[in-house]
């Protein structure tokens, strides 16, 4: 579905990702982990067509991602954006409705189908009680849920998330993970998520890719990729600090 081949990316003289090969098949659920500065976000940016590769290529359904028109790309890949501050007061429902931008015909605005998708996304994320609240009054965690709802309303076959649980308490972290599993298993959405929490990655994702120093060092099931030796080597911490379901089992 989406495939990076020999992908090298960088910013101004600094190479961040070198020769990465990563292929994500339709319906897969994949977590990308690695220490800070390993290049996880850059890899996501390149794979979603935001950052042009220095070498190698990214293909979406067999087409070079930089050649896919923006609107078409936005209908194929939904990216949960960073939690941003809005300059003006805006009700949550209107923010979520922005997720329908790639689908709306120009000029007419939201159609009934779009409104239904917005309502569906709000319900699914469980933020119905926030609907008419001003986005700027919400806590960081609540805002994060709203931004996930924007991407869900976008209803793209591929969902990409960069640390979707960064601002969430443990209850909401689990809720979001369960939502991702549900979107993946029930709707067939392909999910690609950067996660910091190895326990969440191991517990909720059948495939984990470990990135270190701009290279993919491991790719497979949590049991294969998140062994004690690798955690010590890649993250430089005592594996006992990370109690993984797979480590115990």
């Amino acid at each position: 579905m989406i495939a990076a081949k020999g992908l090298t990316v960088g910013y101004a003289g600094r190479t961040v990702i070198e020769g990465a090969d990563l292929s994500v098949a339709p319906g897969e659920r994949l977590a990308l982990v690695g220490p800070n500065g390993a290049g996880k976000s850059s890899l996501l940016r390149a794979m979603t067509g935001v950052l042009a590769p220095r070498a190698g290529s990214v293909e979406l359904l067999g087409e070079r991602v930089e050649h896919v028109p923006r609107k078409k790309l936005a209908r194929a890949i939904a990216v949960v954006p960073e939690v941003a501050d809005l300059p003006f007061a805006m009700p949550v429902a209107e923010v979520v409705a922005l997720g329908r931008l790639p689908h709306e015909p120009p000029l007419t605005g939201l159609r009934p189908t779009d409104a239904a998708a917005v309502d569906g996304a709000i319900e699914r994320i469980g933020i119905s009680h926030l609907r008419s609240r001003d986005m700027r009054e919400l806590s960081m965690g609540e805002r994060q849920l709203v931004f996930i709802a924007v991407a869900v309303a976008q209803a793209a076959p591929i969902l990409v998330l960069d640390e979707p649980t960064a601002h969430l308490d443990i209850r909401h972290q689990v809720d979001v993970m369960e939502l991702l599993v549900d979107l993946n298993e029930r709707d067939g959405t392909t999910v690609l998520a950067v996660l910091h929490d190895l326990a969440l990655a191991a517990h909720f994702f059948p495939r984990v890719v470990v990135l270190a120093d701009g290279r993919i060092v491991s790719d497979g099931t949590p049991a294969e990729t998140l062994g004690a030796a690798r955690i010590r080597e890649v993250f430089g911490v005592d594996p006992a600090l990370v109690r993984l379901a797979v480590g115990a089992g």
Partner: protein
Amino acid sequence: MAAGALARDVEAGGLAAWVRARPLVVGLVVVVALLLTLVLGVGLGSVRVAPAETFAVILSRVFDIDIGVTITPATDVIVWDLRLPRVLTAMLIGCGLAVAGATFQGLLRNPLADPYVLGTASGAAVGAAIAVLLPIQLVVVEFGLLHGLAFAGALASAWLVFRLGGMGGAGGLTRLLLTGYAVGSVLAAVLTMAMYVSGAELRQIFSFLLGGLGGSSWVRLIVAAPLIIGSSLLIMARGRSLDGMLLGDAAAGHLGIDVSRERGILLALASMATAAAVAISGLIGFVGLVVPHVVRLLVGPAAHRVLPISALAGAALLSAADLGARLVGDVPVGVVMALLGSPFFLVLLHRSRSGYEL
């Protein structure tokens, strides 16, 4: 006490919610206000003209229809040659500045942005000052050197800020705003120098800086109208891009918006509307900054509501303010607007703590 405050909060929140859910009601009220300022603007002044007479003059002039109301030649001149072009020009300028202000605030994600944020004001003022100081009298169908150079100055400074400020990348917006400030400062220094050496012409430069609608005429109105109305309509057609960009550049890009292209187009359109407005009426402040905020307080931030309602409200506000300015003896319209409008805005802001949110 506490219960009273709570009840007031609930009431204010209820009213705000009621208004927000009914943008058409707001639009209707604004349209009525606009029509009212049209009738009053033409009718009131040193000579009063009844609405029926105004109507008769317009019908006879435009459609050559006589509805049986006797019109004296003096009334005909007052309505057709003096007041009507002035009222319509006020509406046109108010509309253009309000739409441009709403656009700049949304694009730059900055509530303090106004139509002059990219240095258009200083650019236009320098152009006007040069025109005043040059010993050349050039008039082409009612457009003097001053109009031409003010228009060119506004566009040139917007273009310069846009080029120097760059568009993409992290911190792009801050860089653009700071570039606007820096270019504006240089131009302001040039303007100050020009005023310093201007001598007897100082008054002319000063009256451009204050802005005013005394120089309105049909020809100027008809030349500026397509620029302002055209830009405003094109901006409205791109309203959803403006909405998407409220989420920030990265998020907007993922929603399928070509951010740098859309921003370039929208900045160019808003600068065009601003330049056309300042060229014929000088620097009129307040309307472009405040009207979009008041409208957002009433109907929320979505561009398909904010832009058209701001256009109508800006038109109504400026024509009402110009009427006020005319009635008290031709004081600058910006003074009237700021004196009467700011307290109203302050009240709204104060109320926004209970219910509304800016």
